[in-house]
């Protein structure tokens, strides 16, 4: 059973995110648990990045298909707590994002007490993933997917995505 569990874990660890295919679900931190019951059925727990993440069904289907192709039956369940944070993106994942022109998130600040209102642009230590310049500005806190903000480099003038801290 332990061997089966190791195999299931290895297989699930290869499944990539449908919207950020340079990352595995494990690198993204949405893969929360893999277990095997006495019948050899694999249960995989994943957590959504955002409440409305439209990629959950694809993630589930990709996990089930990957295991099925290796002859394993799997069910996918959700865990909602604790809520996903960008801090769960692995170092390997952060490197992969940067290599693909997406600025990785900084540390999410844990909130103690009421959440403060921020009317000025958020200050982040972001640099352009194309040319490395730190002379960048935020275009919008909302981008092509729920998890990204849109930036512009003022040196090379290229726009780029930044995975925003949550």
């Amino acid at each position, binding site marked *: 059973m332990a061997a089966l569990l190791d195999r299931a874990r290895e297989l699930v660890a290869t499944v990539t995110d449908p919207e950020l295919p340079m990352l595995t679900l494990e690198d993204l931190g949405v893969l929360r648990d893999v277990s095997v019951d006495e019948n050899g059925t694999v249960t995989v727990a994943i957590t*959504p990045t*955002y*409440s409305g*993440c439209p990629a959950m069904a694809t993630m589930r289907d*990709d996990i089930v298909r990957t295991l099925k192709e290796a002859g394993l039956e799997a069910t996918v*369940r*959700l865990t*909602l707590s604790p809520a996903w944070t960008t801090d769960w993106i692995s170092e390997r994942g952060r490197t992969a994002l940067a290599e693909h022109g997406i600025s990785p998130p900084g540390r999410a600040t844990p909130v103690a007490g009421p959440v403060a209102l921020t009317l000025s642009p958020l200050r982040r230590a972001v640099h352009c993933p194309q040319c490395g310049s730190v002379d960048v500005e935020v275009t*919008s806190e*909302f981008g092509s997917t729920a998890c990204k903000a849109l930036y512009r480099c003022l040196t090379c003038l290229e726009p780029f995505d930044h995975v925003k801290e949550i």
Partner: protein
Amino acid sequence: MTNPSHNTDANPVAHDPHDSVYDGLLVNDAHWAFGTDFEDPLAGVDTTVPEGMEPGDLAAYCLMLGDDALILSHRLSEWCSSAPDLEEDIALANIALDLLGQARLLLARAAAADPSVVPALPEGSPVPAEDALAYFRSCQEFRNLRLVEAPNGDFAETISRLLVFATYRLALFERLTQSPDAVLAAVAAKGVKELTYHRDFAGRWFLTLAQGTEESRRRLLAGLATVWPLRAELFASHEVEARIGVDPASIAADVDVVLEQVFAVSGVERPTARALAGVEGQTGRDGMHSEALSRLLAEMQVVAREHPMGVW
């Protein structure tokens, strides 16, 4: 998803499963035509109702919070392709998507707590409970605040409403993270992170419009004046809210502090318009709505209601 052996059976020529993006549509089981495909957004989540909480109360409370999110999500999505610029179009759609996600979880939680709240559908209908609640309830069965159902107005009015709503909901969700119901607490903890971005977005635009041109300021003040009479309803405690949820009266002061902060920076006077009265004391939480909600629901629900058995 794509099953290679199934593919081979279906087609005389064996295809690589990654041949075409359409292959995934040709295999696999059929889904209800209007669903979002993760059939149960609470799959595998423990939905036991905590001790001391009436299932009916919990369901009613989840419908209130879920309907707020669903209806405002729909209103915000009406901006798709109509916002002042592409960035704002995308921002409003993202906020709508976050709220839709919160709505799905909350409606699913309502159905799991008390299945009797889910409208009856024809035998064998593929409609999941959350969608039955969204698409097959009538106007007076919705429990959202009247604030969220009002038409969008212009961009400034939409921003004014979003500022009031996001400030209210963020204060509410911060407290809801302590709910004895683990599902509600988890939905709230996740929602807090999303609503923080929504509130900041609305606050920045409020400031920008207030301090922008004469025209942008005129529109902002007009939009705020239209929205303001619907604000008081947010803090009127419904008995269900007071009994098992966050009593909205308890967050009024905190919400005001944030709104005053935005008003002060923006150089905007707090409006003095009186609250819009209910009908015989009843408001949105009681199912008493404005005509705007019927029109919104007619558009949102019409296709689903035509095809309660529709699959593809």
